[in-house]
């Protein structure tokens, strides 16, 4: 079972990284600003998942903290960006 | 990993340098951001790379230093990140201040004829 676990940990790790790559492609090609914002938000989410996966890979619960922080912080810039797109300024 | 990180540092720094040499203040700001990423990673790399050995002494008893990543570069990078954050903010505000007062976003505060 442990080899399966090892494999699936590796698999999910690669999956997350590939997801990051896909999001980056969208981030790079856009074409519209909302596409890029969406891609960046996905990148944040993937980063959160990456932290979780790393934690599991290393059996270290410390990575949880990073994931928590990403969840709580990452959306802020997305909201700010979306608001910027919608209103032209972030704080009115 | 070492090779990857080295190339990454080079790419970040190089992109930053390119941007810092550009005429628009926003480009310079972006360049400074990228350069500081590169430099931070560079400082970090002087402690060499350690995977899953954060300098947290969680086990009781005398810690064996060989089990932990070098904490000093991390502390230095932390300070550098904070200072970099502050200076980025400053440059940003200066940029818009300059844009407001000079009407231009050129780094010299005036457009040069090319």
């Amino acid at each position, binding site marked *: *079972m*442990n080899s*399966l*676990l*090892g*494999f*699936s*940990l590796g*698999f*999910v*790790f*690669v*999956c*997350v990284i*590939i*997801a*990051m*790559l*896909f*999001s980056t*492609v*969208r981030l790079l090609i856009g074409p*519209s*600003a*909302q*596409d890029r*914002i*969406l*891609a960046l*938000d*996905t990148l944040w*989410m*993937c980063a*959160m*998942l990456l932290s*979780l*996966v790393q*934690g*599991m*890979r*290393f*059996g*270290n*619960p410390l990575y*949880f903290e990073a*994931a*928590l922080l990403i*969840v*709580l912080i990452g*959306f802020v810039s*997305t*909201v700010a960006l*979306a*608001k910027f*797109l*919608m209103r032209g300024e972030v704080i009115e | 990993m070492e090779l990857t990180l080295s190339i990454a540092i080079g790419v970040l720094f190089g992109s930053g340098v390119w941007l810092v040499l550009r005429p628009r203040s926003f480009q310079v700001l972006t360049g400074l951001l990228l350069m500081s990423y590169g430099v931070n990673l560079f400082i970090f790399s002087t402690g060499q790379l350690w995977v*899953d050995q954060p300098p947290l002494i969680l086990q009781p008893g005398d810690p064996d230093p060989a089990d932990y990543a070098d904490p000093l570069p991390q502390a230095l990078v932390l300070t550098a990140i904070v200072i970099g954050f502050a200076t980025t903010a400053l440059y940003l505000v200066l940029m818009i201040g300059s844009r407001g007062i000079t009407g231009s976003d050129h780094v010299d505060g005036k457009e040069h004829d090319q």
Partner: protein
Amino acid sequence: MSGLEALPPWAALVVSLLLLLGGGIVVIGALGLMRLPHFYQRIHGPAITTTLGAGCLLVASMVLFSSLQSRPVIHELLISAFILLTAPVVAMMIMRAAVYRDLRGRRRGRGGPQGEVYRLPED
């Protein structure tokens, strides 16, 4: 991988399945983001990442650490809760921003949201 060997087989199996599923979903979500032709379609891609993808991984993590440490480790619930609190806002904000941006663009003769819901006053 410190201590993963000590994991009971059932837990390892559950965790592995969750991870495989989650990993697959995550990739598919990002794939959607990358490959779907329009923004209004692309925005649905990451949604599966944040829900089922993240959910699987979080549960896997809970199971893994609970069985590793032989006590309930459930603080991942917090992450789930925060995802539930943040992801909808993000989606709403991006979506509305995109819609009105496109509407403004359509007024200037560029494409825009399809359908009857969003029509310009003159349309």
